[in-house]
């Protein structure tokens, strides 16, 4: 008898409303800018948009994993820098790019593992634990090459290999779309699958919703929390490689503030910073909203400051909606008698 009023499975997914709202906002913003300046709609601009948003998408995926458990990862911006510096330094030293990539990602995962231990095992407040690793990882980024940015990677591995590396992560394209976007899209699909279709994904939501209930139901909180920090560190590592490829060298300040861009992308897309809800589809929309604003405002020659102000307002507004919505839920429940 219940079968009659069932909604389609797709629409009944929790968090879909917020994600679709973010997509609607994206379309409105995109068209609004396009009406002011038609360059917004040009094929070249769309390609650029997709490539630039990929960084925010990847960092947002990692941060969303952590946010959904009700935690936060402040270290990922520094991990981006660490990744860019480590990979560049290795390549300048002549290490094969593939090997350099593997070593770099491994280093990033170590940071994730430490975060996971601090928050999961030792129950440190995630804000503090990852604040600590944020400084440490940035410090490592400085020290890798003796407190200097690196030389061009082509000086170590040669022009051909450097071009291959840079094309793979940034400048090259496949089927008319920049490789950066393909990489982001493939990782997005993998992590989307892991979060929405697997047991670990389910446990991530359960922990964010009610960690005690999850524990009493036999969910291993330590393992699951550690996994989320591994995902966020891995995504940050990939972003670092992209930035390295873009610059063709390592920049010590690479990824500065990215941890917050990740929070913004997630939150705009409906990922609750209080845990328990959110879809990566929303994060995708959030990253796109962010990049479209950045892109659109620069096309219409708005001052850089305006861009920050607009984004700040949108982030607060998105969370405000979430809080108001939750409060509404609670008071509805409370007044029931």
């Amino acid at each position, binding site marked *: 008898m219940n079968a009659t009023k069932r909604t389609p499975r797709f629409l009944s997914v929790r968090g879909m409303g917020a994600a679709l709202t973010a997509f609607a906002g994206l379309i409105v913003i995109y068209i609004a800018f396009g009406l002011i300046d038609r360059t917004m709609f040009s094929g070249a601009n769309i390609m650029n948009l997709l490539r630039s948003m990929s960084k925010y998408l990847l960092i947002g995926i990692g941060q969303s994993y952590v946010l959904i458990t009700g935690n936060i990862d402040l270290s990922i911006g520094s991990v981006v820098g660490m990744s860019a510096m480590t990979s560049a330094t290795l390549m300048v030293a002549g290490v094969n790019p593939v090997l350099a990539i593997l070593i770099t990602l491994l280093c990033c995962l170590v940071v994730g593992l430490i975060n996971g231990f601090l928050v999961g095992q030792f129950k440190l407040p995630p804000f503090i634990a990852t604040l600590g690793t944020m400084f440490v990882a940035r410090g490592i980024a400085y020290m890798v090459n003796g407190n200097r940015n690196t030389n061009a990677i082509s000086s170590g591995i040669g022009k051909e290999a450097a071009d291959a590396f840079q094309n793979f992560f940034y400048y090259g394209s496949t089927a008319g779309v920049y490789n950066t976007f393909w990489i982001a899209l493939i990782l997005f699909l993998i992590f989307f699958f892991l979060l929405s279709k697997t*047991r670990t994904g389910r446990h991530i939501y359960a922990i964010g919703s009610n960690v005690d209930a999850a524990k009493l*139901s036999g969910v291993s909180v330590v393992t699951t929390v550690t996994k989320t920090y591994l995902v966020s560190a891995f995504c940050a590592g990939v972003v670092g490689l992209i930035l390295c490829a873009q610059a063709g060298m390592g920049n010590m300040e690479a990824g500065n503030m990215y941890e917050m861009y990740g929070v913004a992308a997630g939150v705009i897309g409906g990922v609750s910073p209080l845990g328990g809800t959110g879809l990566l589809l929303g994060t995708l929309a959030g990253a796109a909203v962010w990049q479209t604003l950045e892109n659109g405002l620069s096309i219409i020659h708005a001052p850089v400051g305006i861009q920050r102000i607009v984004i700040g307002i949108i982030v607060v507004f998105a969370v405000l909606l979430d809080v108001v919505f939750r409060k509404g839920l609670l008071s509805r429940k409370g007044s029931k008698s």
Partner: protein
Amino acid sequence: MKDMNETIVSMKGICKTFPGVKALDNVQLELRSGEVLALLGENGAGKSTLMKILSGVYTRDSGTMEIFGREYGDLTPKQAQEIGVAIIHQELNMCRHLSVAENMFLGRETCRGMVLANREMESEAQRVLDELKIDIDPRQVVGDLPVSKQQMVEIAKALSTKARILIMDEPTSALTSKEIDELFRIIRQLKESGYGIIYISHRLEELQHIVDRVSIMRDGQYITSMNFKDATMDEIIAHMVGREIKEKFPRVTCEKGKKIFEVKHLNAGRMVRDVSFDLYEGEIVGFAGLMGAGRTEATRAIFGVDPKDGGELILVGQPVTIHKPQDAIRAGIVLAPEDRKKDGLCTKLSIRHNIALPNLDLLCGPLGVVNRQKEDAMCQQAVEDLKIKTPGVDIDAGNLSGGNQQKVVVGKWLARNSRVVIFDEPTRGIDVAAKVEIYNLMNHLKQQGIAVMFVSSEMPEVMGIADRIIVMCDGRITGEVMARETTQNEILTLATKFESKIAAAAE
């Protein structure tokens, strides 16, 4: 299901000590399949502790525990669950963001390869729900369900783990009559299929609808068990109350003076319904009742912590409006709250800062700078008046003993000329000597002409200290008695006078 009336749980000689308290002393319990056993006792009798041992939340100090004929040592919650013991806690433990099916299968999801088999889990959940004739869509989000349905989901979750022993702690406290009917229907159904159910409730009148046997505990000890059919209500209450009241309650007689405070038709949410009473100079008014009777809620509404839906407060003939605690404090109505550590004290601040906190308006100069001399004087006064045992006023309040903490809570209010002091469970968790000091403190206030409102769930102390006792049950005042003329049985009868939610339905 065929093996009815076979002993499935047998606990013997169970002891459990918490720091400073002997919570369980040589307690026994027996549960048979296909029966509902009511575990009864006053607050603090040790029922919940015993159940937490059975479900693996606590470990026992000594005693034996046999479940399904097998002897078990210390259990973890997970092991207990695997053996087939499921507990449904009073406060619900669900992931509000997840669906019914997801909650039911949390921690033991069905997977196909790596992928969650959502449809399978949903149809299995549906099957369990159908079996229990519970009309809930397993795909619904738990947070959207009313509390009663969430409780049904907890039961369904317990049963889907193949539990054969079900512990329910006050399951009906949040339910309406129709929902209670529904719950009882399910309990009867489970009983017929051979489940053993332990049912904890204060609502004695409910028992007749489902219970087979009762076990009674008091003060951490096992008192007796009997078939429900053979017992009368009076007999059960007498066993629950049991003890004699000794003269450990210093009473001071004062002349009852003029009316100080009047509460008229106070309403606040579900737990405070049409509450009216008066407080007079020179008397302590006790508020008795069971846990969850709405007494704490009433004090919070009066003090302005929780919003009021209606009602009038009159202080010395003048109506007062209280929207927030500052209003109450300014009017001279103050509260020593139930949970000292959570609501009463800033445990990480010093005694000095705690006492000064609500009095900063008196202590600060025009620029908002605290006058250290006045502060010192105020703290010194409080420490002396209340005999707070401490090496100095700059010690963290959290380091004091429970009794001394309570004195600090009271001390911070005495610095102002308060007219009404509300004590909510002031003696909980403190030793006997400190209790007597708290009683003396209340007597002291009473002699000064301050109206004292004294909420307590420990009947002997209410009867020993209060002059007049108001009894609440389920958010309403169910009676008022003079402490000298009443008996514990009378109070307990009033305290369990629930509105007959189930009488109509039972017909």
